[in-house]
Structures are given as structure tokens and as C-alpha cells.
């Protein structure tokens, strides 16, 4: 991104100032918020850059201003470009990009809710992160206290788009759903079986996570990072630790880097297997799910043997991992990889040879590549719709620079392809596991982490099993963080679900939803 930054500086003389950063994997620059739309438009049009994330920071105490941050990346460039756009002192409004870039629709509204900054020109300037019954508070402002006691909950005030027309009905679902899943509200407008449109309401699980990060010592915050989204405990943990390590300039020893890679892939295998089974269940092929559940237990038991926890918790730490493995654990891993591979082949053969299953999955819940790109869809959902992104390949971290693997990409964008991406990725993951075991270096499993230097910023990206996870931190005094921004892949992908279900029948909604399997907790934080 260095040449992009140079070209942008030339195009906007005197408007962009490069910022020094020691953090690996990124270049940073500062500009005025008023210039941001033109600069970002130029980076996108001229260099094929993608706006991965936008977020804000309350720096009124230090810089007398709010800052906005725009994270950009482009194909075949390992660096991220982080643009810091400052608002003038006293200004509480920023130019919105959402009209041209639907991908940032929710993110800009989040900034509005959490910081009280108005996205000027936003096409849908409604609340998203704070529900309508919240008082006019902005929790991520520094003058809002974490333990602020808010007035009692007063019930629902949200207005949904009306369902109009003869024979058109509304089906409200949630927040407490019929299955064992997380809470959110789905409001379907249906004409008979087909879904006309779906309105989503998320953030039922908002629990002040980003604010809480500002109140924990960095070492303790690792456990909070592991709780952002339970199924991505390790990915979020690594994303957070990497961000802090980059900010502190801490080098992670090679062995730790490999152990992390192995566990990241195990997390992917566990979740993909569960999803493949769940997709089969949602079209009535329950036997396949029983085999998937059994296979997942094999992997979870391996997780416990390697980390002491079924969800890989309590393993990653700032500087490496908390525990090293002995030869018994390594051979348990080697043995389990072979068993998983054999069982996985049986499972996929079962599903793919079932015509009635395929019949339900193909052409169901189509997300076109155009829509996927417009909405900034990432991860599994993106790759099934032609969005060729994978942080492991595009911005190598951990030991991925030394691994060879294929990134499966399909254009059709239906449930079948989202399942196929998972099947392909499990096979690639097993290859990565074997390769990592062959290359596993010796040496320490962790670098000593002393005190955190204050005032450093760093971005970190991890390809969780669901997609691109971004963490951005600013370090503060006293081993604490002044800001920790978390971007789960689900945040971009929820609006894609709305597109994918349109025109499908209501009974296919569960399988379409499951084929994306987005995190509510990661979205709501």
C-alpha cells in the first residue's frame, strides 16, 4: 500500500500526511475527515482497494477531536492502509460513504450510536447498535462510564417497514428463536410461501465489549477477546494478541507461531464440520448431522488434549501461547488428523451422493457476486459468491506465509456452494495441519511480555473460519488499552443474508441462514 499512499499524496498535495508506525503489516496516514470521501474513492477506483472497516475513536482529551479510521486493502498487497481522518474540534458530524458503499452502512450507524457522530448524507440514518428504547447516550465516548446505570428498559419502540398489499403477511421471529441459537429479530414479509423481504434487527446481545476492553489490563483482556464469539474463541484471541504484539513491537517465537496456526486450522475444521452437518439437518438429512456431530466430538476431544479446553480457550497469550506440547500431544494430533480425514471423506460422500439433499441446496439462497461485492461480504459467504479474499493468503500472519493452500472460490453463490467452500477448506486445513506438523520448529512457546508502551496503535487481521476478523488497538498507560475496535466478519455479512433470502420460500430460510452461520455475539459485541 506504500505506492498507493505515495500516489494519493501526489493526487491530494498537502492533504495527506504519512504517520510513522512501527507496527508490522500496515502503513498509516492522517488527513481531514472532509477529504476522506475523495481520497477513498480514488484509492478504490484507481487501485482496486477495498474498504475493509471504518471506526471511530474519542480523542477529545488528547487531540481535542474525534478521529475516524478507514482500513483499506487491495489484492496482492500484504499491507493494510489505515487512514486516520480527524474531525475539526467541536465537530460532531462526518461525511458518510454509505450511499456509494453499502458495505459501511451498519458501521457508520454504529459510529453514530456509540460516539454520537452524525454520518452526514447517510441514506438510512436510523439507530442500529443501540435499540430505540435506549436513552440518548453514546457509550464509547470517554465521558460515558462503563458502569453507568441506565433507566429501566421500556419495551419495544422499533418501527418496521410496513407489510402492505393483499395477501401479504408479516412473520415476526425472535429474539428468542425456536432452535438453540443466538437471539435476533427477523421480520419476514411474505406473499404465500415466497419471502418478499426480510428485515433484520440485531444487537440484542450488545454487552459493552469494546468499552470493557478499555478497562481491563491487556493480559486479562485476552480472555475477553476469547469471549467475543464463542465459536471463534481462538481466532479472536489471536487477532487481539497480534494487535497488542504489533503495537508493543513484540516478536512471537517461531514455535508459538506454528502452534497458533495449527489451532486456528483446528477451529476451522470443528466449525466447518458442524456447519456441514447443520446444513444437512435443515434439509432433513439428519443422519449426516449425526455423523458430523460425532466427527466434531473427535476434534473437540483433540482440542482438550492440546489446550485443556474444548473451544481452545485459555491457550493464546500475548507473546505466544500459554502451554507447549509434548510428544504425546503431537502424536495425538497426528493421529487425529488421519481419523478426521477418513471420517470427513465418509461424511461428504454421504451428503454429496444424496440427490434429494443436493436438490434442496442448489439454486437456494443465491447471493450474486455483484451484491456480495457491494455489501463487502467476506469469508465463506463471500468466496461462494466470487469474492476472492482470504487473509491467510492476502496478508499472511502466524505461519501462513510458509504454508501452501488453495482458496476455493465459486461464482454461483447458493447454499450448495457455501457448503462446498467449507468442504474444500476442511481438506485444505488438514493439509495445512500436516505441513505445520512437518515444519514445527523447536524453541520457546512464548516471548516474555513486560509492560505495554503507551500511545501505540496497531491493526491485526485473522481469517477466522467465518472470514476476516480485524482488531485495532491503541495502547494507553498502565498496561491498558485506550481503544480496542473489533470487527467480526458477521457485521458485513448479515445484510447479505437479507439479499440471499429474497424470493426464496420461508421453509428454506433456516438452511440459507445456516449456510452463512453468522455470529450474533460477534456482531453485537
Amino acid at each position, binding site marked *: 500500500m506504500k505506492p498507493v499512499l505515495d500516489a494519493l499524496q501526489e493526487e491530494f498535495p498537502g492533504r495527506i500526511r504519512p504517520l510513522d508506525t512501527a507496527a508490522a503489516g500496515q502503513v498509516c496516514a492522517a488527513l481531514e475527515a472532509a477529504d476522506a470521501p475523495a481520497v477513498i474513492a480514488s484509492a478504490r477506483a484507481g487501485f482496486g482497494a477495498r474498504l475493509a472497516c471504518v471506526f471511530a475513536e474519542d480523542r477529545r482529551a488528547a487531540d481535542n477531536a474525534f478521529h475516524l479510521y478507514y482500513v483499506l486493502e487491495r489484492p496482492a498487497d500484504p499491507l493494510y492502509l489505515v487512514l486516520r481522518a480527524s474531525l475539526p474540534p467541536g465537530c460532531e458530524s462526518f461525511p458518510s460513504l454509505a450511499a456509494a458503499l453499502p458495505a459501511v452502512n451498519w458501521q457508520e450507524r454504529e459510529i453514530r450510536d456509540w460516539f454520537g457522530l452524525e454520518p452526514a448524507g447517510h441514506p438510512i440514518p436510523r439507530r442500529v447498535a443501540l435499540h430505540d428504547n435506549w436513552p440518548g447516550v453514546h457509550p464509547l465516548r470517554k465521558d460515558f462510564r462503563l458502569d453507568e446505570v441506565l433507566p429501566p428498559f421500556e419495551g419495544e419502540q422499533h418501527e418496521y417497514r410496513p407489510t402492505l398489499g393483499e395477501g401479504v403477511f408479516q412473520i415476526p421471529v425472535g429474539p428468542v428463536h425456536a432452535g438453540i441459537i443466538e437471539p435476533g429479530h427477523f421480520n419476514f414479509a411474505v406473499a404465500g410461501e415466497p419471502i418478499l423481504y426480510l428485515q433484520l434487527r440485531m444487537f440484542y446481545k450488545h454487552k*459493552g465489549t469494546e468499552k470493557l476492553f478499555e478497562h481491563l489490563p491487556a493480559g486479562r483482556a485476552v480472555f*475477553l477477546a476469547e469471549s467475543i464469539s464463542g465459536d471463534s474463541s481462538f481466532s479472536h484471541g489471536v487477532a487481539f494478541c497480534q494487535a497488542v504484539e504489533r503495537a508493543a513491537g513484540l516478536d512471537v517465537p517461531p514455535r508459538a507461531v506454528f502452534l497458533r496456526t495449527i489451532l486456528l486450522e483446528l477451529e476451522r475444521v470443528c466449525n466447518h464440520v*458442524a456447519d456441514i452437518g447443520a446444513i444437512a439437518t435443515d434439509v432433513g438429512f439428519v443422519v449426516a448431522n449425526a455423523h458430523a456431530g460425532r466427527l466434531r466430538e473427535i476434534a473437540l476431544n483433540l482440542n*482438550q488434549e*492440546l489446550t485443556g479446553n*474444548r473451544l481452545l*480457550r485459555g491457550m493464546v497469550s500475548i507473546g505466544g501461547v500459554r502451554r507447549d506440547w509434548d510428544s504425546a500431544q503431537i502424536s495425538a494430533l497426528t493421529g487425529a488428523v488421519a481419523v478426521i480425514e477418513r471420517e470427513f471423506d465418509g461424511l461428504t460422500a454421504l451428503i454429496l451422493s444424496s440427490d434429494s439433499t443436493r436438490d434442496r441446496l442448489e439454486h437456494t439462497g443465491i447471493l450474486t457476486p455483484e451484491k456480495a461485492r457491494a455489501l463487502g461480504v467476506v469469508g465463506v459467504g463471500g468466496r461462494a459468491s466470487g469474492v476472492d479474499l482470504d487473509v491467510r493468503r492476502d496478508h499472511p500472519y502466524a505461519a501462513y506465509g510458509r504454508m501452501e493452500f488453495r482458496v476455493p472460490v465459486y461464482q454461483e453463490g447458493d447454499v450448495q456452494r457455501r457448503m462446498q467452500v467449507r468442504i474444500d477448506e476442511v481438506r485444505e486445513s488438514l493439509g495445512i495441519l500436516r505441513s505445520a506438523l512437518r515444519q514445527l520448529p523447536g524453541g520457546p512457546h512464548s516471548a516474555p511480555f513486560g509492560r505495554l508502551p503507551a500511545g501505540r496503535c496497531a491493526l491485526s487481521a485473522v481469517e477466522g473460519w467465518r472470514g476476516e476478523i480485524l482488531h485495532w488497538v491503541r495502547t494507553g498507560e498502565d498496561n491498558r488499552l485506550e481503544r480496542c475496535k473489533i470487527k467480526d466478519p458477521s457485521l458485513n455479512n448479515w445484510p447479505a443474508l437479507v439479499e440471499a433470502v429474497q424470493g426464496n420460500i420461508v421453509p428454506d430460510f433456516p438452511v440459507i441462514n445456516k449456510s452463512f452461520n453468522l455470529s450474533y455475539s460477534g456482531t453485537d459485541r
Partner: protein
Amino acid sequence: MFKILHQTLRTGIVTADYPAGPARFAERFRGRPAFDLENWSDARPAAAACPTGAIEVCDNGTQRRVTVDYGRCVFCGECASAGNGVRMTREFELAAFSREQLAFSADYALNPDGTHARLLADSRAAADTGKLEAAGRAVRETVRRVLGRSLAIREVDSGSCNGCELEIIALNNPIHDIERFGIHFVASPRHADMLLVTGPVTRNMELALRKTYQATPEPRLVVAAGACGIRGGIVGVNYATRGGVDQVIPVDVYVPGCPPRPEALLHGILLALGRGGKQLRR
């Protein structure tokens, strides 16, 4: 069809025999941290290492009270790594009828340097459990009579990280197969005998949780699962959370864990039904 049958036959029976037999799982699973109170020379490193404040130290002159709360514990093992006196065990049957039962305290006389001179007293053997048991026994007898043979559970996520849900879903897989006890998960609270609630109860889920509780016919049981459901876990109480299920609705059984493993959930559910045996041994 033949492929499916072939694979099913080849697989055979995989269901675990817990709770009839011992639970079988990896050696290195981290369960309850055990405290050697008599020989614990200093609780401060363990308390400092604990990410959720499950181990607390309160000094008063030459004395110290150490409180350990399994309801807050996320079983990370940091206390055991931090110093002597603590080791991780594989025990997972920690469910209890009250939050108080999950905690105990120990009083120490201190050396001038702040280390423990000797153990003065501890509350592990306190008789509070007996009293609580007597109070709950009559209710549980009714519950067992009405619900004991078959139980319908409605799961409510009041703001968890989804970790507890993953383990609850695992109760339905062929390994843990909770249906063998006549227990099944239902789609509506109106069909349910028990609410299995996870999460610290967010401000946005509080009303939904209350309504779900009201929609559940009596007699009804509530099990709070996971550190968040018991005392808010790592999230605790803040502007957006209430810090535990019993801040909003009454709870019958608490199941520690982050998340509780499927056997631990099963143990808690059976305990609530009066079909389980053992309670937390400290």
C-alpha cells in the same frame, strides 16, 4: 440408502455411558481448580492472575480472607500457573442450587511480608448447604413427581458468546444424546418445563427473558449455565448487562463452566430434576 445403512452399521454405538459410568475425555481437560488451603503460602499471585475475580484477597491488618467463587471461574488455569497451592483437576460436576454454594472462603494469619503464616479457618465444611437443601427439597420433590420422567427444555440465550450454545447443541449429538433420558429441547417456552438460560442478561434481552419465563407453565425450572449466566462471567455488570440470570428471574440450579462441558450441563439438568446424585465437593 445402502450407503447410509452401511455407514451407520460400520459406526456402531458411540453414545457415552455417563452418568452411569465415568465420563471419558482427554486427560488434559481443565476442570475445577483445587486449593490446598493448609499449604497455600500466598494467594495474591493467583488472585492477580484470575481474569474474572473468582479469587479475591482481602487483607485486614495481620489477617487475610481469601474467597474463591467457582461461579465466576472460567477454568483458564492461570491461578494454577501463578503459584503453589492451586492445581487444576478434571472435575466438572460443579452444579449447585445456589450461588453461595459455589463459593467458599479461607482466613489466614499473615507473615510480615504478606505471605500466609497459617490457616485460621475455612468455610468449606459450613452447614449452609444443609439448610438450603431442606428448603429446596419439597419443591424438588414436586418437580420430580411432575416432570421427572420426561422433561422439555427451552433454551434461552440472554447474551452469551455462543460458547454455551455450542455445548448445549452437543448434548443432542450421538455421543451425549440427551434424549436417552427423556429430555428434549422444544421450540416454545409454552411447551417447556425448564428454561436453560445462558449469558449475563443484556439490557436488550431482559424483557425477552422475562416474557419467556412468564410463558413457561408451572411447575417450571430454571437452570443458569456458564460463568456469564451465574455472575456475568468475564463481562460482569456494566451499562449493557445485568450480570447474571437470577438478577432477572429466579434460578434453581447453577452450572459453572466457560462453557460448561456437555456432561456438566447434563449433570446440572439432572440435579435440577432430582435425578442427579453428587453436588459440588470442595
